[in-house]
């Protein structure tokens, strides 16, 4: 007989699961080397039950977050009875539910008194994963093998023993040595999770754990269902747009979602979405489903625990062969970055029925990566332009957008490089990184402001990779709120030549002294700008985030209201 549910112990379990995944996350932050991991925190840590159901996660970068449980279930079925204490499994394969090639996961089955009781897992964006282009963003790829080494579930440790041959096979196909160290850090974090969970089992026993786990799923499902029940029943449709597949100039693709709210469940159906591209601008099922879930989570009570119960009322249909779920063996590296247009489609669909929960459009990602040799140190550097890519979020009813937060798939989880560390670690010199005046979409609640980034490139023969969007279509306004501005990246060479890279591009031989200029624009506004608080506007004009001209043009401020503010 299973023990009865102790409502108090239930809170204790919930708090402990969260503490464990948080602790795993700290372990990753402190021990990894790639700045993508330790500075930008592009990783997720989680605990799963024996069946692979999510117990709790720490989601630094949410777009990775909702592929871990599906892969955990896949791995469990894949190995079946052949799972043992001391096994450690690697996985990145996008055709067995991985979300992106570079996001390589470690799964560790957790045994208690000889029985498989749970899993700990960590997935992080690795600095290199083989394929044609160092770092992984190959805009010319059409097949997965041009992008990455595929890692279907593979044991690198079996019964506690390192499989040296397997380990060497994997890392013989990866360029950078730090990836080995960062995968060790992922394994270390899984071990931390394993130890803590076993301590919990020692204290309360397996039967109690199982009973309370189920009760926690049920309580969470109820919370989620209650939130969904607040949405008026019906069927709602929306679209989001993707510009340029990296290979065909002028190409444009449409994401179409039909959302059906019925009772306490919600269904997202992407069947009418455009077909996959013949480039790398394609999603995988789990990256696209993560985008859907993270957008929905921003519309519900943020205190809902993240476990199996949270996802149970959500159904997601994405037919294979669409741009959101490419068929084998298509290239998919850009897939995580289809989150912004996917989120746009959802916000547009639900806006009319949840005007108090949706946001206007968020600034879309446009990112660059520079590599070269620092002439003073004679050392190679790689820099991902985190500071430049972070635009503003969309406004919502009652709340302005968040300035310089970055794309919706990170929602403020990815941080700028520190300016002085940037100048230590690259030969570049920062000229400007400031909020951009008038970049936010006007509205009764304005969008978040974007940023302008200017730096002088300090290495000869510099290579620049761009990937992203937002240079054709701005973040949209809602309910009378205005659109924001467009993204761009522009290079001014010392000889006077100007180069504007495409939004997915590879530019080589950029000379020293070139000025790099980027704008990540703002988020869309919400509601009639004429209704914006006048005192707030006067302050914003004084602070120079809204110009006098824009205040008069977009917000209808009079000279008199603006008064002496200069």
């Amino acid at each position, binding site marked *: 007989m299973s023990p009865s549910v102790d409502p108090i112990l239930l809170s204790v379990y919930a708090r402990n699961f969260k503490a464990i995944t948080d602790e795993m996350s700290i372990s990753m932050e402190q021990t990894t*080397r790639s700045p993508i991991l330790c500075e930008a925190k592009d990783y997720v840590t989680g605990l799963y039950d024996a069946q692979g159901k999510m117990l709790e996660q720490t989601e630094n970068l949410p777009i990775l977050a909702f592929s871990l449980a599906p892969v955990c279930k896949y791995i469990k079925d894949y190995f079946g009875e052949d799972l043992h204490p001391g096994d450690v499994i690697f996985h990145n394969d996008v055709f067995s539910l991985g979300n992106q090639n570079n996001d390589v996961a470690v799964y560790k089955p957790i045994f208690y008194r000889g029985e498989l009781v749970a899993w700990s897992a960590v997935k992080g964006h690795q600095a290199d994963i083989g394929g044609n282009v160092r770092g992984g963003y190959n805009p010319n790829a059409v097949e997965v093998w041009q992008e990455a080494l595929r890692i279907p579930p593979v044991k690198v440790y079996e019964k506690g023993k390192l499989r040296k041959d397997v380990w060497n096979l994997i890392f013989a196909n990866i360029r950078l040595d730090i990836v080995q160290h960062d995968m060790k850090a992922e394994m270390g974090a899984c071990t931390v999770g394993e130890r803590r969970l076993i301590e919990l089992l020692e204290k309360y026993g397996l039967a109690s754990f199982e009973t309370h786990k189920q009760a926690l799923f049920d309580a969470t499902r109820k919370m989620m269902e209650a939130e969904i029940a607040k949405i008026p029943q019906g069927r709602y449709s929306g679209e989001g747009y993707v510009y340029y597949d990296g290979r065909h100039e002028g190409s444009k693709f449409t994401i179409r979602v039909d959302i059906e709210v019925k009772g306490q469940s919600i269904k997202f159906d992407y069947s009418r979405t455009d077909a996959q591209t013949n480039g790398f601008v394609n999603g995988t099922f789990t990256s696209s489903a993560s985008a859907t879930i993270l957008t929905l989570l*921003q519309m519900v009570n*943020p205190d809902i625990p993240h476990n199996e119960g949270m996802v149970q009322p959500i159904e997601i249909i994405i037919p294979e062969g669409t741009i959101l779920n490419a068929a084998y063996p298509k290239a998919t590296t850009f897939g995580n970055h289809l989150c912004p247009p996917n989120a746009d489609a959802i916000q547009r669909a639900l806006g009319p029925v949840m005007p108090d929960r949706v946001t206007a459009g968020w600034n879309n990602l446009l990112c660059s990566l520079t590599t070269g040799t620092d002439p003073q140190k004679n050392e190679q550097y790689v820099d991902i332009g985190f500071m430049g890519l972070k635009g503003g979020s969309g406004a919502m009813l009652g709340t302005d957008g*968040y300035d310089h937060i970055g794309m919706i798939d990170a929602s*403020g989880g990815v941080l700028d490089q520190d300016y*002085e560390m940037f100048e230590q670690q690259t030969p570049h010199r920062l000229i*400007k990184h400031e909020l951009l005046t008038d970049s936010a979409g006007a509205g009764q609640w304005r969008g978040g402001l974007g940023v302008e980034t200017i730096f002088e490139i300090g290495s000869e023969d510099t290579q620049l990779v761009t990937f992203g969007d937002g240079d054709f279509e701005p973040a949209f306004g809602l309910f009378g709120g205005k659109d924001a501005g467009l993204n761009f990246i522009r290079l001014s060479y010392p000889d006077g030549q100007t180069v504007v890279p495409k939004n997915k591009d590879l530019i080589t031989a950029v000379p020293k002294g070139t000025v790099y200029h980027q704008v990540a624009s703002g988020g869309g506004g919400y509601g009639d700008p004429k209704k914006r608080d006048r005192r707030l506007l006067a302050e914003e004009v004084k602070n120079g985030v809204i110009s006098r001209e824009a205040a008069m043009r977009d917000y209808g401020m009079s000279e008199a209201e603006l008064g002496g503010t200069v």
Partner: protein
Amino acid sequence: MSLKIGIDVGGTFTDFVLTRDHAEPSIFKSLSTPGDPSIAVVNGLTDIAAAQTPALSLEAFAASIDTIVHGTTVTTNATLTHTGAKSALLTTEGVRDALEMRRGIREEQYNNRYTNVKPLVPRHLRSGIKGRLDRAGRELTPLDLEEVREAIALYQREGVQAVSICFMNSFANPAHEQAAAKLVRQMMPDAYLTVSTDLLPSIRFYERVSTTALNSYVGPKLNHYLDQLVGRLKTIGFKGLLLIMQSNGGVISPGLAREKAGLTLLSGPAGGPGAGLFYVRPHGQNKCITTDMGGTSFEASVAVDAPMIKNDGEIARHKIALPMLDIHTIGAGGGSIGWLDDGGLLRMGPQSAGADPGPACYGKGGKLPTTTDANLVLGYLDASYFAGGKMKLDLAAAREAIATHIAQPMGLTVEAAAAGMYRVACNNMAQGVREVTIKRGFDPREFPYIPAGGAGPIHSCLICDELEIPLQIAPRESSVLCAFGMLLSELKHDFVRTFVARLEQADFAHLLGMIDDMAREGERQLAEERIPQARRRGQIKLDCRYIKQYHEVSFLVSREAIAQGDVTAIARAFHAEHNRLYGYSLESENTPIEIINVRVQAIGGIDPPGYREEPRAGTSAEKAIKGRRAVYLPETNTFAEVPVYDGHALAHGNRLAGPAMIEEETTAIFVSQGFDCVVDAYGSFVLYRKGREDLVQHCLT
């Protein structure tokens, strides 16, 4: 005879601890006066003077005080409530928004209603000035003094009270900052000025500009408060030494505190961890976990030989990169409110009823159930002996609040609901202790646990059960631990310089020069504070990392190791600390090590209160039993009658078995079924897990 007083201003009470050489410390409390906290200081001193035998006039008593050590929350509160000075910032052209953008973080990723913090300096008072240094500190463009003048003219028009200066790469060359500072001093002689390289000449622009702006933001408030305090103390005839508690666990003169106000942001709780060590040392221990449970917050910290320090703290979401004690604060205290979330799960806090209206049982209008209400229902508090009987508690009101908000919706009895609140609160606090132990690489089971705060020892047994900690020490001064800790604090001055180099290629002569410069400045400050040569000492730390890592590890090195360029010894110390913190080192792989910062701390020794050993009084505690009452026993989830001991009547060597209650005027201690208790030679209540007499052998025999 040397009379010293530690004074800790809290939200509700201002705590006083008096020590006279080796006499027993005495404890006083006065009601805080938030409008001008120095009034409560004088009120308390008035009461203490009257309580002397024979009673003294305030003036006669004040004149007899040698030293006052003072902890204040003036700067903390100014930051938390955004009521600091009107401030301006001179910075490098192109980066004036770094302070506001905070590297683009949104702490709550799924919460679109979560807004950014209001910047410490409004944008129109942040001036980007032409003038640029490169990453090595070489001038690329000279500083535009005309632009500085124009900016200052704007600040004058706007009535700015405080100015900060922070330029790009100034850690490598302070010349531009100094030139701008000179102009500010000329044109705004009355403004409070912070120059980033005077306060924190280390790399990482955002951390430096945030720290500099915080210092300016709280500087004028602290100055104003110190004017009031010093004025009042002078008026009543105090002629001794006044010292201010700083966030790093040391004390400084009021003069230095005025300049570096940011050093006091953690002044209030910073006395705790050092005090914890004081109480465990007689037990042959050099480490402990110190916790302090107040009305709204619960603070936890670890000390090993000395309290743990961190160099990258935060206050109200603003970065502060000055060394401060690693004290973890969570929203859990006596006033924490119990509530049910949308899924029906019971939660405690972080919302607090505070002191006003306070818990329902205070009868001051509070209607929501709090931790204190649960403690009363569970029998841990005596309604007629709260604060020694000075405050009556309303049991019916406590039951009513718990019934309405927790018990009825959950379908539980009031007792079961109260027990649940107690257990959830203890679990929250245990997680807080995990933050400073397990998450920093320490095993909590190896540490004695010091439960401070009036209600701390009511919860400590269950917290220790969760963490499997076998030994607790509850000092007599536990309700005023921070004030006591202030009397133990030495003078401490921290200095830092950035020195980026591969360890094996470092120019050690140059590094030694930097260290000696910092040490000389420390000597000068200690001399100003009248610390004799013999009591001055110092320590050196390097911040290092493995090549290509992003985060540094700070560890102690000797001056000799630097002078001799002993790379092997320095590397060994680094590997060891990295291994302790993160569970591995790369010693065997010969991975290169990089130095980033060098730190010097100048320390001035003081005369701490000594230990005063009580004579043994036999093992029996029978005579101290003042009654029996039913309390909740968490191990069996039942209520049972247990003996209630008068703590004041317990003496050295007395032993008692759990379950039991011990009551003192300002503290209640719950000894659970799992623990027994013995009073040590210094009057502390030592709780040890049943059967673990080995931990307290020296107290038993």
